[in-house]
């Protein structure tokens, strides 16, 4: 199912407009991750897709059919609500089997299917319990199973894995991805975990204040962020932002004049800030003072002070070296943004 959102406007009563002229297209069978800060309108967007909210203006088009005003049932959507919305009076098994019951699937068959899905989300031991007797993560998995069972045309997942531990989350997102591939269902997956997004999404939509900042593939988003917001939003630890004026003297290469004219901020990803070894790809050499170094799991984090700015790097090996040193800025991982925050193309740097 190809999904088009056309010129959506939406304002919550008594609030500022949230969506203004929001437009995007999800290709048939695509898994799109929807990311954005809290309150950016992700849930709202899913609700519009599901038909729970009707936009003030604009259209929701499924495979060419305008469904903006179609009822919820007719859209054939599977959804995991952010707060699950499990039926409190039904057991886990019945909760999962509910969509099939609505489709008049025979009891035996639907329980069989429900059990299969319960197995997939690892909830089998809890089948006889009621939602009130489940832990948060268990509830979430029931909600996921319920959304998956009926093989919907569009799957909307609102942070379906937020309450799960890392291992289970990896397992389930892989499972979701597999099922999604098999059934070729267009899926929107809201997540706060960039790994989720980066690992399984075909494309990622970055939303902020109700505006789509960028919609692109994982790699593109990371490597070619459209603007400062996206660059800052994607990537852990966060990208380092330095005023252009502060870095300018240290550039080892010649930058295009337009770039120099417009760039206001420079963004350097932590892994692009390396122990100084001048190579072709080094853009600049920054003299810094080491502040702290520590490791988190397998990651070695280093914070350094550069001029007024504290920078973070993941590419400095554990060291007992002098406290002041020079770090190299790798071209691949360094971005320039103009005053509006839009990224400027660097062009080919001149050595």
């Amino acid at each position: 199912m190809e999904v088009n959102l056309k010129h959506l406007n939406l304002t919550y009563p008594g609030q500022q407009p949230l969506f203004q002229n929001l437009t995007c297209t999800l290709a048939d069978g695509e898994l799109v991750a929807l990311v954005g800060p809290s309150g950016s309108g992700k849930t709202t967007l899913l609700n519009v897709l599901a038909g729970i909210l009707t936009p003030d203006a604009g259209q929701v088009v499924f495979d060419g059919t305008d469904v903006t005003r179609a009822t919820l049932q007719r859209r054939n959507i599977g959804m995991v609500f952010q707060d699950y919305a499990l039926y409190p009076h039904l057991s886990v098994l019945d909760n999962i089997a509910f969509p099939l019951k609505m489709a008049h699937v025979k009891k035996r068959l639907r329980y069989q299917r429900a059990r299969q899905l319960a197995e997939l989300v690892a909830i089998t031991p809890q089948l006889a319990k009621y939602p009130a007797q489940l832990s948060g993560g268990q509830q979430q998995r029931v909600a996921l199973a319920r959304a998956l069972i009926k093989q919907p045309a569009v799957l909307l997942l609102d942070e379906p894995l937020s309450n799960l531990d890392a291992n289970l989350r990896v397992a389930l997102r892989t499972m979701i991805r597999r099922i999604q591939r098999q059934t070729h269902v267009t899926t929107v997956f809201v997540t706060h975990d960039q790994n989720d997004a980066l690992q399984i999404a075909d494309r990622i939509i970055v939303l902020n204040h109700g505006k789509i900042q960028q919609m692109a593939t994982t790699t593109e988003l990371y490597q070619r962020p459209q603007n400062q917001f996206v660059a800052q939003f994607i990537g852990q630890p966060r990208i380092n932002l330095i005023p252009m004026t502060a870095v300018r003297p240290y550039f080892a290469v010649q930058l295009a004049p337009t770039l120099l004219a417009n760039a206001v901020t420079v963004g350097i990803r932590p892994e692009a800030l390396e122990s100084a070894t001048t190579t072709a790809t080094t853009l600049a050499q920054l003299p810094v003072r080491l502040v702290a170094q520590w490791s988190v799991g397998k990651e070695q984090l280093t914070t350094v002070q550069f001029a007024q700015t504290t920078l973070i790097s993941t590419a400095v090996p554990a060291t007992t070296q002098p406290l002041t040193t020079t770090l190299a800025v790798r071209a691949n991982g360094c971005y320039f943004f103009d005053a509006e925050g839009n990224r400027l193309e660097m062009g080919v740097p001149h050595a």
Partner: protein
Amino acid sequence: MLNSRPTVRSTLKALLYIAPLLVISLAFTFWPLLEAFAMGFYRHYNFYLNQIGSLSLANFQFLWHDAAFQLALRNTLIFIIGVVPVSIGLALLLALSLHHARHFAKLLQTIYFLPLVTSSVAIAIVWRWLFSAEHGGLNGWLAIINRTPVDWLNDPRYSLLALIIVCIWHSLGLNIILLLASLQQIDRRYYLAAQLDGANSWQQFTNVTWPLLTPMILLVSINAVIVNLKVFDQVYALFNGSAGPANADLTLMYYLYQKFYVEDQPTIAAACGIVLFGITVGLTLGTLWVLRRHHYPQRGWSPS
């Protein structure tokens, strides 16, 4: 807390909370109840001098053989069967439509509310007029569908039906208000989820509304059973101080009233009260049993 066991302390505390209700109930319901029920076993009782001849089951034997009592019992049961399911079903239907009404919801609500405040005397008079053989509004409709007019209130074959109609109408407002208040409390998300899961309106009703409304339906049903078993005011008002044509609308409560306040037979009345009470308890337990079979652990508190 959640799983803590009762202790003496917690019991004392709880009793403090319940005390106001309990003390008043004890003083003005339990205690007089004992006194009133005891009377059902007195024989040769001088009501004013409070002289008790002896204790016996004679009053119950009297009831057993009394044709009027049998009639009252039969009428009451027919009446209950006629009123309770219909009035609750109808109230549910109307409450649902009011709940979903987008336009005039307030106005409609008010309309259903008005019968509640209208005094039963006024209601009875109006219904008497509606039922009246010559100009009755009801017979007007019967005429439209080509039926012979019915003398609703004076024909023993129809007068119980007339009473049932009036009582259904009268109880609607109360049930609607309670059900509506309860419908409001149902989280809308469940409906959204159900719709997304493909449930049509009917399926939403049976799978979401009904189960989540069960506590209130239970309450409304029990209340309806209790109130209607004790129906008296409406009979008295509708038939102007009689029990309908040839006692066709004699209910247990009317019988009790008649025996107590009119015929100076308080012991018989008390015995009738005991029987009525027994029936009420029985029917209430039955209702509870029917409606409470599906019990699920709630996020809230375990109901008793």
